C-alpha cells in the first residue's frame, strides 16, 4: 500500500509527502497545532486538501468521499451507538455490508476474542470502563475490515496507566490482523513504543521520518532531539575539526565530540540526553573537567533524576536507571559530570535562535 499526499498553499499542511508501507504501523507526532490531525482528516476524506494527491495502494482516493476509501477511523471521543450492545456495535460494519448473519456472528466473536474483550453479549457501552469502551470502538473499526486504520489520539481520553496497557494491545491487534495503521498522538513514549516508524511534524511540515531507535539515538534534526525524549543543549564553537571528531569550546571549557562534518569556527549546539550525563564526586578524575552543584535530586521510580548547575551557569539534567542502590547525592553537593561520548550529538546552531527552534507552543 502506498499513501502519498501533497498539499500546497495551506497553513495547516505545507507540502507534505509521505509514503506508508503495506502493514506498517506509523505514528505521527508533533506539538499541538503541528497539523497531525489535519493530515489524518485529509487521509480520511473528512477534510479536503487544497492540492496534492492521495493514493491508497494503487487506487487514487483524492476525490473520493470517506465511505469509499475503505478506511477504519477511530477518534479520541468514542462514538459507540449507545442503544446497541457492545457486541452489536462491533457487528455494525459486517451487518451494513450485508454479510451472511451466521458468518457475521462468527466473525464478530472472533474479533471480540482477539481484542480480549471479556464482556457478555448483553453489555451496553455505558456499563463499560473507559478502557473497555475504547477497545470496543477499536474492535468495531476492525470488524469493518478496513484497508487502512486511522487512529486519532485513540487513547487520549484514558488514565495514564490504562493507556500504558492498551497501547501494546493496539499494536498487537493491528499486527495480528495484518493491517496498516496510522496513529496520531501527542505522546512521544506511546509513539516510540509501538511504531515501526515515526513521523515528526512541526508547523505543518514533516521534520523527520525514521524508526524509533534511529530518531531517538541519532536524530538528524535538533527539533527531534528535543521533542522525542528529553535532552540537554550545550551551545559552543568548533575549535578543532578532525576526521572522526571535533573539539567544541563551551565558555572556555572543552568538549571532545566523536562526530565530523563541522568546520573550525562554526557555531554549534550539542544535544545530550540526560541518561548520557554521568555524575562523579568532584574529586574523581574524569575525562572532562566539568563541575557544578546539585540543585535537585529526585527518585522518579525507574530512574534517578539530578539537576546540576554548572560553574558557567548552565543547567544540566542527568537521569540514571535506578539499580536499587541509587547514587545518593545531596542538594548543594559539588559534582563532576562526564558524558557518554556517543551521546554527544552536534548540530549547526539554529539561525533563529535555540528557543525558537525548540519551541513547543
Amino acid at each position, binding site marked *: 500500500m502506498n499513501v502519498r499526499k501533497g498539499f500546497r498553499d495551506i497553513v495547516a499542511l505545507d507540502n507534505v509527502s509521505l509514503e506508508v508501507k503495506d502493514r506498517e504501523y506509523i505514528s505521527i507526532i508533533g506539538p499541538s497545532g503541528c497539523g497531525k490531525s489535519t493530515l489524518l482528516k485529509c487521509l480520511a476524506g473528512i477534510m479536503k486538501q487544497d492540492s496534492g494527491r492521495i493514493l491508497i495502494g494503487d487506487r487514487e482516493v483524492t476525490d473520493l468521499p470517506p465511505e469509499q476509501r475503505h478506511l477504519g477511523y477511530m477518534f479520541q471521543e468514542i462514538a459507540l451507538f449507545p442503544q446497541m450492545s457492545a457486541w452489536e456495535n462491533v457487528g455494525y460494519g459486517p451487518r451494513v455490508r450485508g454479510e451472511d448473519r451466521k458468518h457475521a456472528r462468527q466473525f464478530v466473536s472472533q474479533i471480540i476474542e482477539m481484542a480480549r474483550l471479556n464482556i457478555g453479549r448483553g453489555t451496553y457501552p455505558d456499563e463499560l470502563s473507559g478502557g473497555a469502551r475504547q477497545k470496543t470502538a477499536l474492535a468495531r473499526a476492525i470488524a469493518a475490515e478496513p484497508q487502512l486504520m486511522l487512529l486519532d489520539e485513540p487513547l487520549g481520553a484514558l488514565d495514564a*496507566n490504562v493507556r500504558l496497557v492498551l497501547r501494546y494491545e493496539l499494536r498487537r491487534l493491528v499486527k495480528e490482523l495484518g493491517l496498516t495503521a496510522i496513529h496520531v498522538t*501527542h505522546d512521544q513514549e506511546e509513539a516510540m513504543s509501538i511504531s515501526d516508524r515515526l513521523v515528526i511534524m512541526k508547523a505543518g511540515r514533516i521534520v523527520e521520518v525514521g524508526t524509533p531507535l534511529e530518531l531517538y539515538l541519532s536524530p538528524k534534526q535538533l527539533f527531534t532531539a528535543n521533542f522525542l525524549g528529553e535532552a540537554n543543549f550545550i551551545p559552543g564553537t568548533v575549535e578543532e575539526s578532525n576526521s572522526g571528531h571535533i573539539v567544541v569550546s563551551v565558555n572556555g571549557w572543552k568538549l571532545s565530540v566523536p562526530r565530523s562534518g563541522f568546520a573550525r569556527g562554526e557555531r554549534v549546539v550539542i544535544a545530550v540526553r540526560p541518561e548520557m550525563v554521568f555524575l562523579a564526586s568532584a574529586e574523581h578524575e574524569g575525562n572532562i573537567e566539568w563541575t557544578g552543584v546539585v540543585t535537585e535530586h529526585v527518585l522518579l521510580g*525507574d530512574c534517578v533524576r539530578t539537576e546540576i548547575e554548572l560553574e558557567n551557569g548552565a543547567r544540566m539534567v542527568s537521569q540514571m*536507571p535506578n539499580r536499587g542502590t541509587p547514587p545518593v547525592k545531596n542538594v548543594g553537593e559539588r559534582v563532576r559530570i562526564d558524558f557518554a561520548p556517543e551521546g554527544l550529538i552536534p548540530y549547526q546552531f539554529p539561525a533563529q535562535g535555540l528557543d525558537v527552534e525548540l519551541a*513547543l*507552543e
Partner: protein
Amino acid sequence: MTSLTSITLVDVTKTFARVRAIDRISLEIRDGEYVCVLGPTGSGKTTLLRLIAGLTSPTSGDIKLDGKSVTYVRPEDRNAAYVPQQYALFPHMTVRENVAFGPLARGFTSEESLQKADEILRIVRLAHRAGSSPHELSGGMQQRVALARGLAAGASLLLLDEPLGAIDARLRVMLRYEIRRLAKEVAVTVIHVTHDQQEAMSIADRIAVLREGTLAQFGPPSEIYTSPESPFLANFVGGANFLEGTVVEKKPETTLVEVAEGFRIAGPASAHLVGDAVVASFRRERTSILTSANLEENVVPGKLVSTSLLGVFLRCSVDLGRAGTIVAKVPLREAIEQGLPDLVGEAVCVSTNRDAVIIFTRPKRPLAVELEAL
C-alpha cells in the same frame, strides 16, 4: 501570600446516593508541603479536593485548616484557591485583568491589583503576554494564567485538579517542574490531583494514593516506590512483574516462592510462612536480560517475545512458559550493547536480584482484578 496552611482530615466520609466516594479518610498535610493525590478515575480524587475547597461538605468527619475546623466554613472564607480541571478564564479580559480579578474582588484598589498581577505574571513567565486575550495563548500558557489567577488571589493553599491534564505530553513534563518551582517560590501549600504516577513521583513531597475512596498509602515518593503496601500500589506506582505462588522454603535471609512447578523465585526474609499463598513482585527496571547465563538463583530461561523503545529504557517482553510473561526494562545503552532488538524470538534468560523481590500476601480477589486500575 501570607502564612502557609496545614490541612487535617479526620475520618472524612462523603456519600453520593449511597455510594461512598470518600470512605473514612484521615490524613495530615503539613504547611508548605506539595502533596499529590494520585489514583485511577473514580477513586475519589476530585471529591477529596472539592471537600477541602468547601465546594461540597462531608457526610461525616471533620476538615481542619491550620488546626481550626472549617467543615462549616464557606469556600471563600477558607483562604484556599481551587483551580478546576476545566478552568474558565474570562474571555473578554486580558491576561493581566484575569489575574488581577482575585485581588480586586478581595478589596484591593485596581492599581494594587494590577501590580500584584504583574508580579505573579513575572513568576509564571508570562509578563510578555499580559496584554493578550486568553484565546490568543496556547494551552500551556492558559494553564499558567489559571495558576497565576489562583496565586494572585492571595490564598495560602492551592488546590489543583489535573492542572496538566489538557496539555501535550512533552510540554507536560516541562511544566510539572515549573509548577513545583512556582509553588515553592511563592511558598504555598499545594494539593495537586493527578492520575499520572510519573508526574506525582517527580514533583510531590508526599503522595496520597487513593483507591475506591480509601487512602491506600500516604508517604514520600521514594517510600511508596520502595515499600508499596499492596500489589495494587506496586503496579499503579512504577509498575512491576507479579508472579503468584506459594512459600516453599525459608532460610535466614531468603524466602523461596514456587511460582510454577520447579520454578522458584528467591526473595528476602519475610514474615510469611511455608505454605502461605503469596505474590512475588519485582520491578521491571530491576529485571535484566542475560544472553548467556548459568541457571543460578533468580535466573530463569525464556523467550524474548518483543522489544519496544521507551526512551531511557528498552522494554523487553519475555515469555517464561507456565509462569507467564514478564517485562524487563533494560537501559537502552546496555540493550544495544547486548544486541537485544535483534534477538526477538530467541532464547534468553531473565534475572532479578533477591533484594529487588517484594513478597505480598496473595490478595483475596483475583490478582488481575487487584491490579486493575479501577
